[in-house]
């Protein structure tokens, strides 16, 4: 806890320092970056210490506000989230220092760093808070810090819109959390977590409140709408932090709430599984139909949150039906995926930032051939892409494997029930489908950005990013590989965290089951090594075979069509065209087509974009409806004093007659 506290101090202090130094941007950036890295490393060490010792620590100070108390604590569950937060923040800070130099007005750099450090600190405080009011204050401070970071490029209209949507969404979500905590603290009258308790009658309500309130931050469908707007709008190192770790605080909140609610009934698990399936499939469908690289990544975050939800749901069902393996593997899968997604999504967003920095656009159909020009970015992006598709030999595979095994373990127990088949179909079908679609999505992303020929001058003249950004990319890529190769470690590290959600009566057997999870993971790690070895050998053989043979270079085989131009390449949109057409029920591209006409057509035009289904057909109409009703009611205030006096008279009469009559 000591180290943790010091780290927080360093983070916050650095933030204020850089705010004060904003007259001299370079020093401000240097200070903030240094403190961010240092602080998060301290925090990382502190968190690891608690995680390994497995014994929670708490500190409490008085706080002179009603119902508030400054009580912080670190238990395994918190630390599971502290780990990725600290790691991603540190890397993003190193990256951001160089990134901001080129992309941010010097006068704003100090402010931007202030909010960055604040965001980091508040995220850590959220997972460490042990008092409802404190949690809410940190939670909202976190949202506001990230809101200001999203708005940092506020000259652009779409950024302002994104910021507003984000602010509105997070605020509405939070208002549900207020009720949640007040209901939890209702019996004891105190808002300290250790005083929380839920009346059985209310548990369902509380769960729903938590699901929607925290789901809004986490990005569950259908309350994900802010996510694809805000993440592209933010500076890339911020998107990495937001998408990589900030949305995970929503998952943390959900888990923390579950620890108060006791034995979960079956429908909680089913709800989570359902939401997970919806978020997973729709999220990846929206993702693969995007044309903006960062929007694509944002939607893919929705998909990954869906996978986490699948794991949680499986785990809860395991608890409900007392299937130890299912509970353990499901929860472990979810938690491990939290870490994995933080790493590879952070990596991908940083990569996207590098692409934007190098080629000055995020439009997939204007990019191409960057691998030659930005080799490091390209290679690391490839690693991230494989990881997010859950492919071996990378970390993404581990968490999906755990979740698969959790479900199969449940079924293998031969509980005869159709609902188990349902579970299998939902979870396994979703994971498989999502895996396939993710492959589509990220071959599209990687191929369109880094392979083939450049589709625009900007990308033709792209240049590799500077050392700091390269190093941070490489660091995260290496982290993905290392997590994968150290697979058997993670169940042991995360076990105690997963157990905090399991009711005490059921802990022992769950713990045992969690221990058994190391076997497949160890085998998987071995397989990874085998694979790496095999590809190494094959590469050597190929080199050996080609040594001294004739190697020609020529144009790509164009099937007899002479001199194809770069613009004739298969574009990203046409690449996913068939899938989009197959699922046009969900993915509705808005096409603006002006075909060439006449004998000598001057120009034609074709533009298509995919608006968010739920924003387009649900939230948009609802908000418009409310505004419409409001505008209808405006005649109440239409300026005639007679009417105003009439209101008073009627009020008096009605009240007198009603209350006395």
């Amino acid at each position, binding site marked *: 806890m000591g180290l943790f506290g010091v780290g927080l101090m360093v983070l916050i202090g650095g933030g204020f320092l850089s705010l004060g130094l904003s007259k001299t941007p370079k020093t401000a950036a240097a200070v903030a970056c240094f403190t961010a890295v240092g602080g998060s490393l301290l925090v990382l060490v502190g968190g690891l210490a608690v995680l390994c010792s497995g014994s929670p620590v708490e500190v409490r100070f008085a706080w002179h506000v009603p119902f508030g108390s400054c009580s912080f604590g670190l238990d395994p569950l918190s630390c599971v989230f502290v780990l990725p937060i600290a790691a991603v923040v540190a890397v993003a800070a190193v990256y951001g220092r160089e990134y901001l130099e080129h992309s941010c007005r010097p006068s704003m750099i100090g402010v931007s760093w202030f909010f960055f450090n604040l965001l980091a600190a508040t995220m850590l405080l959220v997972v460490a808070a042990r008092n409802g009011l404190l949690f809410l204050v940190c939670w909202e401070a976190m949202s506001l810090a990230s809101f200001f970071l999203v708005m940092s490029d506020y000259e652009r209209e779409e950024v302002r819109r994104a910021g507003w949507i984000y602010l509105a969404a997070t605020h509405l979500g939070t208002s549900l959390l207020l009720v949640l905590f007040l209901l939890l603290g209702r019996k004891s009258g105190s808002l300290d977590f250790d005083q929380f308790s839920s009346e059985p009658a209310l548990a369902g309500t509380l769960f729903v409140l938590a699901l929607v309130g925290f789901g809004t931050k986490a990005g569950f469908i259908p309350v994900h709408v802010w996510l694809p707007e805000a993440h592209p709008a933010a500076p890339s190192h911020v998107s990495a932090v937001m998408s990589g770790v900030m949305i995970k605080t929503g998952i943390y909140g959900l888990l923390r709430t579950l620890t108060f609610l006791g034995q979960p009934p079956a429908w909680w698990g089913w709800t989570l599984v359902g939401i997970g399936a919806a978020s997973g499939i729709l999220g990846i469908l929206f993702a693969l139909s995007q044309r903006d690289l960062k929007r694509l990544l944002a939607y893919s975050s929705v998909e990954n949150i869906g996978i986490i939800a699948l794991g949680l749901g499986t785990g809860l069902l395991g608890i409900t039906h007392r299937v130890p393996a299912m509970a353990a593997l499901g929860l472990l899968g979810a938690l491990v995926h939290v870490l994995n997604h933080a790493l590879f999504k952070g990596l991908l967003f940083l990569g996207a930032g590098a692409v934007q920095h190098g080629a000055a656009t995020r439009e997939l159909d204007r990019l191409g051939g960057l691998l030659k020009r930005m080799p490091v970015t390209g290679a690391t992006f490839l690693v991230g892409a494989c990881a997010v598709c859950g492919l071996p030999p990378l970390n993404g595979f581990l968490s999906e494997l755990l979740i698969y095994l959790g479900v199969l373990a449940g079924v293998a127990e031969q509980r005869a029930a159709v609902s188990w088949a349902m579970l299998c179909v939902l979870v396994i079908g979703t994971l498989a489908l999502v895996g396939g679609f993710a492959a589509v999505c990220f071959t599209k992303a990687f191929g369109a950005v880094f392979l083939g020929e450049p589709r625009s001058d900007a990308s033709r003249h792209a240049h590799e990013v500077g050392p700091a950004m390269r190093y941070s990319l490489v660091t995260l890529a290496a982290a993905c590989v290392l997590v994968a190769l150290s697979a058997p470690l993670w169940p042991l590290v995360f076990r105690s965290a997963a157990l905090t959600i399991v009711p005490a009566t059921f802990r022992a057997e769950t713990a045992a089951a969690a221990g058994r999870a190391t076997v497949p993971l160890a085998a998987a790690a071995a397989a990874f090594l085998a694979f790496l070895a095999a590809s190494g050998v094959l590469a050597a053989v190929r080199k050996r075979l080609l040594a001294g043979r004739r190697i020609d270079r020529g144009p790509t085989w164009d099937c007899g069509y002479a001199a194809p131009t770069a613009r004739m390449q298969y574009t990203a949109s046409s690449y996913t065209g068939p899938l989009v057409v197959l699922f046009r029920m969900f993915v509705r591209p808005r096409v603006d087509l002006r075909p060439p006409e006449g004998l000598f057509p001057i120009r034609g035009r074709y533009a298509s974009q995919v608006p968010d289904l739920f924003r387009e057909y649900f939230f948009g109409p609802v908000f418009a409806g409310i505004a419409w009703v409001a505008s209808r009611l405006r005649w109440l205030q239409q300026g005639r004093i007679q009417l105003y006096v009439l209101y008073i*008279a009627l009020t008096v009469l009605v009240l007198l007659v009603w209350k006395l009559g």
Partner: protein
Amino acid sequence: MSNWLDAVLVLLMLTSLWLLGSSRLQACIRAVALQGALLGLIPLLSKWPDISLRLGAVAVVSMVIKAVVLPALLRRAVREVNVRNEVEPLVGFTTSLLLGIALWGIATHIAGRLPVDVPGLSPLLVPVAIFTVLCGFLLIVSRNTAVMQVIGYLGLENGIYVFGWAFAIEEPLLVEMGVLLDVFVAVFVMGITIHHLSREFDSIETDELASLKD
């Protein structure tokens, strides 16, 4: 003296109806002045014969103000802005009268709900008071000129004072302050109105005054 008091109350009620029914500003001003005078009579009648000096003084002062000063001010205002001598109703006079009858019903209903156990108090008093207040409201709401709204406001005040005289007579501060306030409001409202009429707009239609809205 209670039947005298009742007579005065009935007269009050009739003046209110007269206010509702008359189409001439001058007539309305006269009606409101009469109301003021009748109002001054109430305490004297209800306390007859033992009338303290203070009571008499207050009664007289209020009579002077309500029956003389304010009507004079109103007339001056009307003269100054040389408006047509029309009331310009939003609601026709017959309708207003019918509404007046309805208001009388409501007033009696409410009064019925509010029993008073004060010996020697006319049963007419509460309904008449409420009725006068409601008529004041009706005037403000249903007439289109600023002056008529002032008149309506005065009618409403008169209604309230019926209460004041009847019950709160022992309450020294209230009444005097009330009188004081009447003067104030009158002065200010009139000042503003005259100002407004003479300077900004060249009519006293309150339609002119509907530019601030949503």
